[in-house]
């Protein structure tokens, strides 16, 4: 990972776009493999974001494009190596900045002859920290910090059944259901099972397999590794609350009900069981998976809003469920 910050100059952006850009850079700071510092109109910056929809922006682009790395910002499809469409959106910005980081890294590696092999990356094996750890642990610890392809047992030659992960875009690619990996995800991964891939290879695989959120993979991996006991960092007496609805692949009525409760209220472990009537093991699995995938926070008791209250017309919910058969 390159540790020096990258400077980004914004040219001819509207005040609103500049505000959005500033917020997004702040929001995504932890997800960028290289920190990005915004500076306005500085021609010496490492990277230039130019709004080319007006004449001034097009002129600036013409001046800079020959000797500077530029991201073209436009509402139309412009022919440019790095293009960011309008309106400005987080995932698109993250993707283009990740691309820049990747290109920078490639260029740095190519400039070092003794490291040329690592630059070809196609068959690169991840380093030793991967040994003997489950996938969820590698994701939690950030050991997997670039695009990788994980070889699954019984792989076909075309790689359709491999698991591809891009931690920067927070996406994974898998040509089958996660449920089929339940057993595999419990096993420690060996270094030879993990291959680094280029962003281009990842993109090509994206043409074949629809990307899913990395959170879905993390949640399911943590669930597969949970044994029905609350994990040590979590306390039975400390209320927990979901910060987002888990992206669940399967429809599980119990998990839906637990998520429904914890997305609305912060409740301690025994309170969850008392309010939902769902057994301790299932509840612990849900809490563990949500916590390990970063979707759950522990709340100080005095902040807790969960006091056993529920919707006043709760019996309506039960009657609707009965009528709809769910």
């Amino acid at each position, binding site marked *: 990972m390159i540790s020096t910050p990258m400077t980004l100059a914004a040219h001819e952006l509207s005040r609103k776009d500049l505000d959005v850009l500033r917020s997004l850079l702040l*929001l995504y700071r932890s997800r960028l493999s290289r920190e990005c510092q915004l500076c306005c109109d500085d021609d010496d910056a490492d990277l230039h974001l130019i709004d080319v929809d007006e004449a001034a922006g097009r002129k600036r682009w013409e001046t800079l494009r020959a000797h500077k790395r530029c991201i073209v910002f436009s509402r139309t499809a412009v022919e440019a190596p790095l293009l960011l469409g309008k*309106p400005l*959106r*987080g*995932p698109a910005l993250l993707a283009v900045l990740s691309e820049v980081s990747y290109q920078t890294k490639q260029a740095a590696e190519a400039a070092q002859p003794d490291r040329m092999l690592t630059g070809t990356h196609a068959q690169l094996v991840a380093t030793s920290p991967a040994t003997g750890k489950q996938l969820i642990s590698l994701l939690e610890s950030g050991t997997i910090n670039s695009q990788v392809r994980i070889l699954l047992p019984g792989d076909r030659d075309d790689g359709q059944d491999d698991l591809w992960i891009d931690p920067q875009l*927070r*996406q994974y690619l898998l040509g089958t259901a996660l449920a089929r990996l339940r057993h595999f995800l419990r096993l420690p991964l060996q270094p030879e099972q993990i291959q680094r891939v280029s962003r281009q290879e990842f993109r090509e695989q994206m043409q074949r397999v*629809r*990307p*899913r*959120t*990395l*959170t*879905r993979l993390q949640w399911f991996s943590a669930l597969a590794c949970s044994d029905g006991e609350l994990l040590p960092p979590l306390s039975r007496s400390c209320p927990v609350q*979901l*910060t*987002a*609805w888990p*992206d669940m692949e399967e*429809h599980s*009525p119990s998990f*839906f*009900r637990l*998520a*429904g*409760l914890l*997305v*609305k*209220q912060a409740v301690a472990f025994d309170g969850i069981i008392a*309010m939902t009537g769902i057994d301790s093991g299932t509840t612990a699995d849900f809490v563990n998976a949500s916590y390990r995938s970063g979707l759950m926070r522990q709340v100080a008791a005095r902040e807790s*809003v969960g006091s056993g*209250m*529920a*919707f*006043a*017309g*709760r019996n*309506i*919910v039960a*009657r*609707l*469920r*009965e*009528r*709809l*058969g*769910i």
Partner: protein
Amino acid sequence: MSPGAPPLKLIFAGPPGAGKTTAIAAISDFPPVNTDVAATDEIANTKEATTVAMDYGEITLADGQTVFLYGTPGQERFDFMWKILSANSLGLIILIDNTRRDPLADLSIYVDNFRELIDSAAAVVGITRSEQGPALGAYFELLAQKNCAMPVLEVDAREKKDVLRLLDAFLSVLEYAVA
């Protein structure tokens, strides 16, 4: 239903063509009453008819109580109706067509307009035609930016099981919404 009790309402909202009429048809006791007319604006490119007032369906519970199902017109020019329909509603089911030009902006409009209902009752988001367009993660990210934790599921509104899964998520949130 006890005399004087407010009627139970469930709102389906979303842009034109997202599947509101189809979703109501999947669970209503009778084919939904709608006011579809031939589309003459840009909607005509995606569907032949569109709803200009509302869709209406019903679910009758075992004790005879009725839950009214309303599908709101998708066009923003009908947004004055959204607030009227929201009053005393159980909550909101937002359907988003992932093949539209900017489906994330579509969701943003509905979340902003129905925010009070979303926070006080229950709401879910169903993404239709999800084989194209933004990945689910983009929706979760948008909701996180708005500090809004609600279910987002991929659905095929033509499939009853998908509509029921969406309703299960909705009822799960509603069950623990603090009135």
